[in-house]
């Protein structure tokens, strides 16, 4: 396999916040290890407050990890030279969830799309103009649209502009943070197809952050499942969506309601609330919601181990076949 | 944690007072020659030297400030240079009741009328009543109070003879000054309440209240208004400052014997002991008012009770 574009080692992020009684520590992320290769798509699956947005921000160097590090082509982000940093900025580009917030309303589309080029490459004006037209047509917009302002576009078109911007600097990795969840349902398939096409055509890798198992299945090759800031399961998308090992993943699968009234019988019904990350349960953080929890789950945090098929799962009960 | 919040506010209040005292002290020292001012033109050199010693003007600036602070803490700001040479603080305190009663009348009636008008305008949104109320608010925001005072005196008191022209006295004396003093704030509160009521009336919790089937009056006066008062409380500090500013003008126009007029007169006659006392008393009042606003906040918005 090719050299990874981004990888993390022992990534953790602790926020100091004000709790109910005095200052408290919020462990948003702990011990996150991921590797992102060009041309491959890694899904990050989790619910609100699980830390997936924090992870995204750290991968984008918008936030710094408390422990561990992010490496760009094997070199820690903190040790990059100015030149390498520019290369990193050019090679890793995000698309955010809300295209109403991600396009500056007072800039023309051509300037929005060109921003990564202006800042991170030494291209001439003429080259930039040509490149803007090229990427606009790649996302299905006529080049004339470059002269217009964002408020003249619908939500779906805005997301296309955001995507055009992200691919303008020919990145190797796209960080996609719920790129379709604010879109209308008839637009979602368009955007997902477009993203997939672009990744295939240009060999771009991606990190696809989502709460929706079905979308992850369509978009990704590999998935990590995060619960309260920790990876609980990691494996190929087919395994995660069909025979997941971790009870949380199984609950997510049950909760991903299929658009079919005849397939509504869930395996494991999800129960309980997501605990506050300020006060996570001891041992396995999922144990209060887990129907299989034993005493060991309350006492000891399970490590990520291979259940025997090359994937990884953090559960004490994985080998107890009786459930 | 309200206790912590109050502590922070008290510390801030202390520093604000200290800062203000320094400003007042420095301003009174850099300006002119207090000795000459006190003694008049035909004083001898010996008189001056004696006076300088008496006032402590031969000491360093820091020592003088320390001295000033120590005295101020004991309520001693010196004596007024004006006729009578009353102690400055006594003079200020004797004028306080007139000002406070006027401000209280103005603020209370302003709040009451402003809130009612604001709610009515929001509820009748888009109708003639709304346009009328907004016109009143527009005029209230635009009319200069000193001119309004003069016009009211001329029309209501002189031409029609309905109310006394000026001076301090019974309830009738309050009407014109309070109206003049309150009109700007009335307009501001009306606009504020109207805007936040419109927001509240379009909110989801008002929808849910209506879904419950409770009467429209309860929806408006209970659900929507309770939330719309929060921004009004936010602006209370500003309103209070507006009132003080207004008091200087209004008390001057209506010959009202309050601290606003005292401030104005003492500044014109460069009566520095009185100026210092007035400014520090007003600052203290102002800080007190802002503390009250913080408490009001805690009472009205449960979300604030948990913030530090």
């Amino acid at each position, binding site marked *: 396999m090719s050299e990874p574009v981004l990888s993390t080692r022992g990534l953790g992020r602790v926020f100091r916040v004000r709790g109910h009684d005095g200052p408290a520590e919020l462990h948003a992320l702990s011990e996150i290890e991921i590797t992102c290769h060009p041309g491959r798509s890694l899904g990050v699956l989790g619910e609100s407050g699980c830390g997936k947005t924090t992870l995204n921000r750290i991968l984008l160097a918008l936030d710094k990890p408390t422990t561990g590090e992010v490496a760009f082509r094997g070199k820690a982000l903190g040790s990059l030279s100015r030149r390498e940093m520019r290369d990193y900025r050019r090679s890793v580009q995000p698309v955010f969830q809300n295209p109403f917030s991600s396009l500056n309303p007072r800039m023309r589309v051509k300037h929005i799309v060109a921003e990564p080029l202006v800042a991170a490459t030494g291209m001439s004006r003429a080259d930039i103009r040509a490149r803007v037209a090229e990427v606009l047509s790649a996302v299905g917009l006529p080049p004339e649209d470059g002269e217009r302002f964002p408020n003249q576009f619908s939500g779906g078109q805005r997301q296309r502009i955001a995507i055009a911007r992200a691919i303008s600097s020919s990145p190797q990795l796209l960080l996609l943070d719920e790129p379709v969840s604010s879109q209308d349902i008839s637009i979602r398939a368009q955007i997902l197809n477009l993203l997939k096409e672009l990744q295939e055509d240009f060999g771009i890798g991606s990190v696809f952050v989502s709460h929706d198992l079905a979308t992850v299945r369509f978009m990704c090759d590999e998935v990590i499942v995060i619960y309260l800031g920790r990876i609980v399961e990691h494996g190929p998308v087919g395994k995660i969506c069909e025979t997941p090992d971790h009870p949380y993943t199984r609950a997510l699968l049950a909760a991903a309601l299929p658009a079919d009234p005849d397939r509504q019988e869930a395996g494991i019904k999800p129960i309980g609330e997501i605990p506050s990350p300020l006060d996570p349960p001891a041992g396995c953080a999922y144990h209060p919601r887990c129907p299989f929890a034993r005493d060991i789950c309350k006492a000891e945090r399970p490590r990520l181990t291979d259940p025997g098929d090359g994937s990884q799962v953090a559960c004490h009960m994985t080998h107890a076949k009786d459930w | 944690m309200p206790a912590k919040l109050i502590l922070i506010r008290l510390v801030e209040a202390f520093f604000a007072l200290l800062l203000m005292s320094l400003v007042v002290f420095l*301003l009174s020292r850099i300006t002119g020659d207090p000795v000459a001012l006190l003694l008049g033109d035909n004083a001898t050199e010996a008189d001056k030297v004696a006076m300088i010693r008496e006032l402590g003007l031969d000491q360093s600036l820091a020592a003088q400030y320390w001295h000033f602070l120590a005295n101020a803490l004991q309520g001693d700001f010196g004596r007024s240079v004006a006729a009578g040479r009353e102690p400055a603080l006594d003079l200020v305190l004797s004028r306080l009741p007139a000002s406070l009663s006027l401000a209280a009348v103005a603020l209370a009636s302003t709040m009451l009328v402003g809130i009612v008008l604001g709610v009515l305008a929001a509820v009748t949104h888009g109708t003639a009543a709304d346009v009328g109320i907004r016109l009143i608010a527009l005029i209230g*925001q635009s009319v200069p109070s*000193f001119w309004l005072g*003069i*016009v009211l005196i*001329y029309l209501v008191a002189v031409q029609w003879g309905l109310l006394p022209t000026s001076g301090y006295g019974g309830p009738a004396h309050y009407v014109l000054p309070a109206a003049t003093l309150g009109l700007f704030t009335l307009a501001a509160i009306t*606009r504020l309440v109207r805007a936040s009521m*419109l927001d509240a009336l379009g909110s989801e919790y008002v929808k849910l209240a209506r879904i419950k089937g409770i009467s429209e009056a309860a929806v408006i006066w209970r659900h929507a208004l309770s939330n719309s008062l929060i921004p009004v409380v936010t602006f209370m500090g500003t309103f209070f400052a507006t009132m003080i500013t207004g008091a200087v003008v209004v008390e001057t126009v209506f010959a009202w014997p309050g601290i606003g007029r005292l401030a104005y007169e003492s500044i014109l006659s460069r009566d520095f002991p009185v100026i210092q006392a007035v400014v520090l008393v007003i600052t203290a009042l102002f800080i007190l008012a802002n503390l009250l606003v913080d408490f009001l906040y805690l009472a009205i918005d449960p979300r604030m009770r948990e913030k530090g």
Partner: protein
Amino acid sequence: MRDLAFRVAVALLVVFVVVALIGPYFMEHDPLRGSLRARLDPPAWLPGGTWDYPLGTDRLGRDILSRIVSGARISLAVCALVIAIAGTVGTVVGTFSGYMGGMTDRVIMRVVDLALSFPVILLALLLGAISGPSFANIVIVISLVLWSQYARMARGETLRVKNEDYVDLARTSGLGHARIISRHILPNIAPSLIVVATLQVGVVIVLEASLSFLGVGVPPPNPSWGSMVSEGRSYVVTAWWVAMFPGLAILFVVMAVNIVGDHLTDRLNPALRGRGGA
């Protein structure tokens, strides 16, 4: 209906500015010099009035119309200077505070809050009393009062814009702080600042007039609208027009400004409706 009010208001403001700029050159009478034969003459339409003095004369026999026209220039000059000074200082402080965030922001904002609600008229009176009434004084004092409003608006808007995803996106493209502020923040907070500036024109005019009325503003014999009202105060009963007309001038101009300000608020930043003028 709203549009009509807006148009009338804009027309009135245009008249105000034009009169302030070129009006004085068309006036027959010197606003500073009176005619002792024509003291306290009533307006033209009252018995005893002449069209020589359309709005009458004051106690020194000076033409009130000429003085109002001349006063417009003073009001306009004070407005322009104050808004330039307070606007610049406030915007810089507020944007800096909001962009930096954290402790810096908290300290700056406490100061701004204090400045915002402090009855600065006391300082104005003090300064006026100490250094005597002067044009420069009044500009400084009013700027001192008003910069905090820009600072608060600029800070709040900066915080809002800073949280927009396009600012994060700009950072991921490697833009520096200066470029983020100039390309992303300032253009997006500008509309709200324009609204504040508009609404403040009215505040400035009234403050200037109030201070001049109290005798610590524009020094006599220059005809500030406020000092004209003050002079007319003693003659309300016998010659009401001396105080009436300059007061009406203030009222109309400030009303027009407020109408335009409200209109701009609705157009540029509806979220601030009703909160600008307090």
